[in-house]
């Protein structure tokens, strides 16, 4: 045997490791980044405590997993192997259907077995919860109407319902179908009078009538072209329920093109070497009409990711004076002032809008509003002082309960938070999770008889400041009472509210 060959093979082995290391440090080979979102791990800082607890070692391993040389190639090649040999993907939440169709797993789950099971096994309990939520929604809708704000729900379609023929096998689902939110809510909305537009039903009806795909083969949301047609319908619906003349869009002739973002978002997340074979997608140009008499209202959208297609394809800036996207009622997009719903004054934002849209797809509507509904209802009906009084009551009960306090302390230490902060968070959760338990008036069937008087007083105050005649009258009173102008305005506004408060 020739020794030099063996020597070369040994050296080559070490060189392979050396190249991996060199790539990690210098990135001398340019590589296409991996798609999808992962929580990035920072290079761990060495501390003796972390080292002894193995935290440092775990973090270092996780850091290496995200940063080793040629990682992109390694992951793409292995993913391609899984796909080619086993029709399998490692991407989180992606299910592989028949004929190379991809679905987001939520939709497959909901098709075969209602996602209600993540909350309860009892259909009656979930129906009761849906009824409570729809009733709260109706109450908010009615109260906001008093301020000229139109609220409605847009039910987005699910790919599972429109293209069930490509779904993966559902053998693993063993429970009864259960109650599906997307089927149950429309009936409730009809019976209560909640405004809504049901694109789920509409898409199923349109599937055989339109000559373009309503969903892309390898994407999770409605296809771009279906989304722009839906936007057109949506704006007409908004005109109708808001009794406003707003701009409409004009959808140009459809054309074929290579599937691109976001119509292939699920495929992108699979991070393959080669594209999945599929028919080209259809797209259409969108423009806004020249209606000079049209208003440009302000829109707040609270919802899931389907609205991104509107953001990307429809010139929303030309239709709305301002629009904010409260993504899952958490992150705020397109607001110059805020990035999170935790930063805003909810009432100010809501009353400043013309339209408030809850935009949820069939698989996500189980979490309709993501906590927005009960919070908005409480804030519209009760002043800050009334809410704080209830919260203080809950905090007092907590403090008198040793076991509860012990579990709160444990939670605080495990999450590295202040105990007070955890207590307040839990008190708010209890309040907003079941506000009817704390506020009698919210148990009433119809629209509540109470209102947050702060809202009205604020509005009356602005009316006083806006009316020179009224303001002069109050100025005179301020001199008479020897108080500041603002204090006199507030007093007058409270008096006026008490005289004219809504029944």
């Amino acid at each position, binding site marked *: 045997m020739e020794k030099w060959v063996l020597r070369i093979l040994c050296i080559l082995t070490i060189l392979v490791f050396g190249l991996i290391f060199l790539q990690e440090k210098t990135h001398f080979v340019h590589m296409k980044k991996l798609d999808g979102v992962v929580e990035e791990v920072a290079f761990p800082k060495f501390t003796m405590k972390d080292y002894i607890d193995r935290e440092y070692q775990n973090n*270092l391993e996780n850091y290496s997993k*995200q940063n080793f040389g040629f990682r992109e190639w390694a992951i793409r090649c292995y993913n391609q192997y899984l796909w080619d040999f086993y029709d399998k993907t490692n991407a989180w939440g992606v299910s592989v259907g028949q004929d190379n169709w991809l679905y987001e797993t939520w939709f497959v789950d909901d098709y075969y077995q209602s996602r209600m099971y993540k909350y309860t096994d009892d259909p009656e309990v979930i129906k009761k919860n849906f009824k409570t939520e729809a009733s709260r929604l109706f109450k908010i809708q009615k109260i906001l109407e008093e301020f000229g704000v139109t609220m409605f729900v847009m039910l987005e379609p699910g790919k599972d319902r429109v293209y069930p023929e490509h779904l993966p096998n559902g053998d693993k689902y063993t429970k009864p179908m259960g109650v599906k939110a997307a089927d149950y809510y429309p009936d409730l909305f009809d019976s209560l009078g909640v405004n809504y537009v049901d694109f789920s039903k509409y898409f199923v009806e349109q599937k055989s009538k339109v000559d373009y795909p309503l969903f892309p083969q390898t994407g999770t949301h409605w296809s771009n072209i279906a989304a722009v047609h839906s936007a057109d319908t949506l704006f007409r619906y908004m005109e109708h329920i808001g009794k406003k003349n707003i701009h409409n869009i004009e959808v140009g002739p459809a054309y074929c093109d290579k599937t691109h973002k976001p119509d292939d978002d699920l495929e992108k997340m699979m991070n393959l070497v080669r594209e999945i074979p599929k028919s080209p997608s259809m797209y259409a140009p969108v423009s806004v009409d020249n209606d000079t008499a049209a208003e440009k209202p302000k829109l707040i959208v609270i919802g899931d990711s389907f609205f991104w297609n509107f953001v990307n394809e429809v010139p929303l800036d030309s239709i709305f004076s301002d629009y904010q996207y409260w993504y899952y009622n958490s992150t705020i997009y397109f607001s110059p002032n805020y990035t999170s719903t935790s930063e805003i004054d909810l009432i100010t934002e809501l009353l400043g809008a013309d339209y408030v849209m809850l935009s949820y797809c069939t698989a996500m509507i189980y979490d309709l509003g993501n906590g927005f509904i009960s919070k908005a209802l409480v804030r519209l009906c009760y002043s800050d002082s009334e809410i704080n009084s209830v919260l203080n009551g809950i905090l007092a009960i907590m403090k008198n309960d040793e076991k509860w306090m012990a579990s709160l302390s444990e939670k605080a230490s495990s999450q590295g938070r202040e105990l007070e902060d955890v207590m307040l968070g839990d008190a708010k959760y209890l309040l907003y999770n079941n506000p009817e338990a704390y506020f009698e008036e919210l148990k009433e069937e119809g629209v509540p008889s109470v209102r947050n008087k702060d809202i009205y007083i604020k509005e009356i105050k602005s009316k006083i400041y806006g009316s020179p005649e009224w303001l002069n009258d109050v100025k005179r009173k301020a001199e008479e009472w020897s108080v500041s102008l603002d204090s006199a305005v507030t007093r007058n506004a409270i008096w006026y509210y008490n005289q004219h408060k809504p029944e």
Partner: protein
Amino acid sequence: MVFSSNIFLLYFLPAFLVLYFVTPNRFRNYTLLLASLVFYAYGAPDFIIQLTASTILNFFLVKFMCKAEKQSIRKLFCGISIFVSLGLLAYYKYGNFTMENINAIRGMFGSEPIEWIKILLPIGISFFTFQSITYTIDTYRGVNEPMRKLSDYIVYIMMFPQLIAGPIVRYNEIAGQITNRTHSWSECLQGFYRFVIGLSKKILVADVLGRWVDVQLGGDIALLDTGTSWIVIAAYTMQLYFDFSGYSDMAIGLGRMMGFSFPENFDNPYNSASISEFWRRWHITLGAFMKNYLYIPLGGNRCSKPRMYFNLWIVFLLSGLWHGASWNFVIWGAYHGFFLVMERLFLGNVYKRIGKVPSVIITFILVMVGWAIFRIEDIGQCWTFISRLFSFDFAAVSIHDAQFVTTLVVALAFSFVVLFGFGKKMQKFVFNTEYSTWQHIVVWLVAMFLLLMSIAALNVSSFSPFIYFRF
């Protein structure tokens, strides 16, 4: 640190190999010693001092034992040395188990439980304890001279390739190699191939099977039908074998790269035609240890039959307990002990009459049922699972994970292929052949492919991105 981790594969191992081979031959044990200390200190930082201290203590105890002239003094030092080794094992491995049982008994009599701080199990303690014992006893028996240099002794006990999961290398098997071994490019490459085989067995087979098994056993066991239950236990049987033997392959491969010849730990155990044979092929070094250092001192075969059966039972009960501090391991040991006794009583004759293949099948089924006891710690759950195996409640089995199915079929095929002639030839080629230059090139390419696949698989399982952040 485990071998199937990025830190080991991508940083520690290459750095060590470079450092080891640039070090002059006579200093290589120091490089190995340093690397082993780093390896252990990284994985078990709170135990490295105890481990090193106990190793040093044992070295001197044995040294004093050998210097002593009186037999009683020698015996005393030997006893102290074994006591220290077993004491550490008893404290760290069985402390929690003992306290849990004491508290359970106290609870039965209405007493308050005794409070204690849970003891963390240091990695590898079971293996280095046994190696320390073999050193003490082999030296005491005069099989080998004691080590001259402390550093060499620490290398023997703490050498990183076999520190975590064996094989248990008896002192007399390796004594000469520690002080005097040869290195060659060919051996280094053969060691690399063996290491890659082990890594692939672990990552590409065992982990794939394990993920599926965990999902199945993580659900409601009572809902499993008979067919699925047998697939679960067959998959676990393969997972365990490919995982453990993979680790042994990696250890043997690493040793071979450094010029060591570690003993084989597995010899196609699922081809055994009896439980007795299974234990000669499964975790061979543990079996050898138990035989030489427990069974024979207890009297072995040279005693009455009842006593021999009792000895067998004791050995297997303790073997079970060695695998883990939990009652299911004790029951698993007793289960194997029971069949060993039965084979000596009558089952062995039955096997002879029915022939090899039926015996292999029966033994494989018995081993699989044993693994159910091994895997499911909760006795009630374990019993439920075993009753599902024999409930004959067959439903249409549908497994949609093609990767799992393929991997299981491949694992089964590789486990039984050696029953056939071509399988034996294949095994001989992979593990024993001195390759020609061209064969080396081909095998190196295959090994490199498997290594990169394994690294990719290791990292893909942790890369599971979201489309968008939801919350």
